């Protein structure tokens, strides 16, 4: 129901962030995510950052997949 993709915040001016996905950049509002700062990855939905991507958790999950794949 809700497409949101990880985008990297490049800079923030006046609650509007310049975010980047695979070399494509766009403006996104960070009004729903007051803690966001440049360098963060955020989930972007319909032009708004809606959640921070927790990089540590992501790496944890990826590690789990790697272990699983290595075990076979």
């Amino acid at each position, binding site marked *: 129901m809700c*497409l*949101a993709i990880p985008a*990297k915040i490049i800079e923030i001016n006046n609650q509007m962030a310049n975010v980047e996905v695979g070399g494509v950049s766009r403006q996104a*509002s960070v009004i729903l995510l007051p803690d966001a700062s440049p360098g963060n990855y955020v*989930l972007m939905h*319909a032009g708004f950052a*809606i959640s921070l*991507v927790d990089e540590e958790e992501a790496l944890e999950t990826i590690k789990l997949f790697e272990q699983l794949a290595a075990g076979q």
Partner: protein
Amino acid sequence: MSLPFLDEFRQGAHLRALMEKLNERAGELARPVRIMEVCGTHTMAISRHGIRQALPESIQLISGPGCPVCVTANADIDRFLEISLIPGVIVTTFGDMLRVPGTRMGLAQARGNGAQVQIVYSTLDALKIARENPDAAVVFFGVGFETTAPTVAATMIEAHENGIDNFLVLSAHKVVPPALEALCNTPGLAVDAFLCPGHVSAIIGPEAYEPVADAFGIPCVIAGFEPADILQSMIMICDQMTSGRAEVELQYTRGVRPGGNPAAMAIMQKVFQPADAEWRGLGTIPASGLAIREEFSAHDAAQRYDVDVSYSREPAGCLCGAILTGIKTPRDCPLFDKGCTPDHPIGPCMVSSEGACSAYHQYEI
């Protein structure tokens, strides 16, 4: 260049390993399980990556009511279409809505009949159109769930604070937890577990599903949207089933925090209040919609435009209702791929690319 936090979750080697583990876990199940993916974006991802075709026989995925285009009642669509035909109105909406048929016509036909329709990627684009066209009323059709509603609310607050009075919203937003409860109470529903929507959960938090898991004993796993996420979530569901647990578990740890996103919730609640809402296929569900609060009534298109939609009715013969509750699959519908195709959709499940029927038609027929 890679796409960080996407590509890592699409590695062929990981997917095959996850699939092997899922097969193992599925072998331990006492009986076949039916997992409902609540969210339309999950339906899309499942079809797109051929997950359904790769599943062991003991796991069946069924598509739930999480496609906003699909569950929006015809009366709401007709109201928006009627408003689009009022002179001096520019209607704006997400691309998903353009091909949705109403009772008499769809938005594409309304555009052909002179309606000014602009497809936007974000509500902020709709607000920009309102700024640039001060003499027109710019009406945004707000559909979607808790992921989208805060973005619409934030835009309405901006319009309100900046005196952009010609920006209006027709709110057909819906919230997920009451619908899940209503679904659990549906006679004939045979769902063993829910694959819960990751991005709705990023806003409302995992706790929101606890009543469902507790009261109905149905395992709920909140899943991300990449194929690895979906497979891992199904493994977690199998584990719960095998050990007789029915809990809310979070697979999508990188995207969802306990408590969700309080800032987004506060903005949503500032503009919207709970209201009864009609869901296609589920009927009217108490407190499952979002109505615009009195403070923002100047931006409420439903209040400004009193249009008659008493003619509204659901398309005849279409099984969208039963498909949305998972009781029927798209293949059960007599119209599927007969009168109803993505080129000529009859029911909304065929219109939205994430609708169960369209996803089946595109990727699996």
